[in-house]
């Protein structure tokens, strides 16, 4: 027993309080004595206790009521119920309510010693488990890895916390690059399966011919080259979470096979005859609109219902523009450390370009843009030049769907050079390697104008 454990004896009989407290004090523990449930709760506001010894029968708040209150507010405090001989059925009831053990008066001295040692060890393990769980959550990333303070993201964090402990299948929808795998990892990290593996399968990346043996495993000799049995990813995910990324890419045949696993909770290795128990939680993700795929007949409706018990939608970056500065700074710091570059911030003007950009590639694109800026930066602060290529029509009309056409590229290029040269036609024409008259024609053709001027 460690020095300075703190116990409390709650009993209305002075003689019991005194004897038990005296016994516990010999174990070098601090022991408080309370004569009623109400007094015990008062004490609990002031100190944290390792073990409470509570008499079941007391005037006022009885032992049961105190037990319920303590377990609600101080779940790691161990509660031992004390009953008199002949009222053991109450003790059983108390155990159902969450008491950790019970003692029948008078107790055998050896039993009391063993009980206290056992319960302190139990409490130590509880606390250790609690600590290790939080460490594992950190290892998996948890929600700490997901950066965002915008309303849709805060709502998403709440939903993750709500749904993580359940066993239901989750479908994560979101555009490419929005961090669907991070969300899946966060769900795993906060679930009861956190101690098990997190097995991601990128359904779009595994060739159709290999998919079956990758997912289900195979027995020796089941096909040419199968020179030894192999566990499939479903088997590897035992006790953990299986993450099917790009689930929209799965072939109809594979959908049938997986549907069977989800229904029967068992599967066969390729070439195998013995069913293997499946024990995983399924999280799927896709950037596709699966309802359209169902309508088109390329995605099975029954499979869709199986994987879509809970749906999470990850907002696109353009829907949470207020997160862009936080994300950009986060990536800047991370990449600066990784690449050992002395870059520490992004200028306000440059940040404005980032915020105004549409981010079709979402966070992945943002990360790449910041990485490029950090790697090519010549100063410690990143200026707007670093991101100029994102927004060639600075201050102009927004880029529409034609922006990839040659006409637009030419127009934007001419505008940029003119602005760089402060609308000096001769210098701009020289840079563009065209005649001044040609440049005039182009300006007229595209309706370009100097900021503040009327159109030419």
């Amino acid at each position, binding site marked *: 027993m460690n020095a300075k454990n703190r116990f409390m004896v709650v009993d209305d009989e002075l003689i019991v309080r005194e*004897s038990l407290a005296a016994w516990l004090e010999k174990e070098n523990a601090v022991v408080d004595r309370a004569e009623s449930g109400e007094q015990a709760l008062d004490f609990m506001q002031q100190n944290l206790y390792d073990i409470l010894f509570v008499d079941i029968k007391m005037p006022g708040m009885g032992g049961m009521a105190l037990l319920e209150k303590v377990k609600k507010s101080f779940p790691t405090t161990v509660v031992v119920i004390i009953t008199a001989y002949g009222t053991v059925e109450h003790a059983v009831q108390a155990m159902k309510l969450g008491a950790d053990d019970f003692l029948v008066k*008078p107790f055998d001295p050896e039993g*009391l*010693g063993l009980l206290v040692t056992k319960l302190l060890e139990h409490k130590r393990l509880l606390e250790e488990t609690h600590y290790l769980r939080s460490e594992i959550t950190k290892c998996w990333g948890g929600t700490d890895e997901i950066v965002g303070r915008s309303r849709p993201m805060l709502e998403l964090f709440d939903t993750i916390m709500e749904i993580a402990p359940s066993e239901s299948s989750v479908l994560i929808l979101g555009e490419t690059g929005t961090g669907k795998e991070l969300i899946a990892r966060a769900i795993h990290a906060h679930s009861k399966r956190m101690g098990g593996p997190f097995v991601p399968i990128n359904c779009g990346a595994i060739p159709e011919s290999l998919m079956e043996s990758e997912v289900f495993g195979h027995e020796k000799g089941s096909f040419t080259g199968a020179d030894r049995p192999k566990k499939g990813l479903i088997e590897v995910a035992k006790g953990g979470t299986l993450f099917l990324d790009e689930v929209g890419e799965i072939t109809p045949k594979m959908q049938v096979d997986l549907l069977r696993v989800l229904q029967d909770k068992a599967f066969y290795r390729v070439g195998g005859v013995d069913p293997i128990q499946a024990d995983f939680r399924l999280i799927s993700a896709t950037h596709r609109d699966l309802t359209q795929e169902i309508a088109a007949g390329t995605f099975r409706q029954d499979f869709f219902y199986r994987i879509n018990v809970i749906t999470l939608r990850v907002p696109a970056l353009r829907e949470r523009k207020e997160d862009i500065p936080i994300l950009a700074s986060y990536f800047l710091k991370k990449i600066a450390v990784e690449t050992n570059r002395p870059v520490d911030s992004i200028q306000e003007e440059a940040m404005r370009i980032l915020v105004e950009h549409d981010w079709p590639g979402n966070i992945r694109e943002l990360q790449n843009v910041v990485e490029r800026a950090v790697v090519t930066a010549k100063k410690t602060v990143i200026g707007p030049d670093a991101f100029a290529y994102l927004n060639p029509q600075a201050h102009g009309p927004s880029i529409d769907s034609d922006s990839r056409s040659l006409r637009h590229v030419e127009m934007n290029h001419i505008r940029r050079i003119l602005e760089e040269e402060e609308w000096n036609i001769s210098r701009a024409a020289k840079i563009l390697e065209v005649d001044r008259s040609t440049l005039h024609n182009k300006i007229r053709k595209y309706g370009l104008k100097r900021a503040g001027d009327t159109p030419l």
Partner: protein
Amino acid sequence: MPMGRAEEDVLTVVGDSLQGLLRLPVDLLDPIPIPQHTFMEERNQYNAMGIIKFMDQEYPANPVKILGVTRADLCNPILTYVFGEAYMGGKSAVMSYARLHMGTANKFVSREQFLDRVVKVAIHEIGHTFNLPHCHQGRCVMRPSNTIPDLDSKLNYLCPYCELFLFEALSALLRGR
């Protein structure tokens, strides 16, 4: 102080061992009967805590500590039996040797082994009155012993730490007087 009838050799060995331990004179008091109000009829045992309270009241002043020795079986309100009882830092302690004869297979142990157990219980209880808590260092006599095998497996003297704490408590007490 014998309570009820107590054997001569038991009283001698307790007195000698405490004198050796504390390096202070130990007096053998006249026997007194066990206070009748501490008898718990339904358990056919005496309440050790009641006896301690009685001793605290009856012998308030002089001796530094007082140890009652009895052959009667003791218990307390929450425990089915005790070999001895003392409050931490209290003035009085009590010990019973009713259960210390027991050997295996219902045979009594040798007198020598019995007296060794008596010494261990006496030192253990007096140790508590000097504020020594249970010790989990090796086989120190302050190790908790709820059963006869526990008692037999520990030594009949204090470990160096408990000895140090005992002498600190003892000198503080004597300075106070």
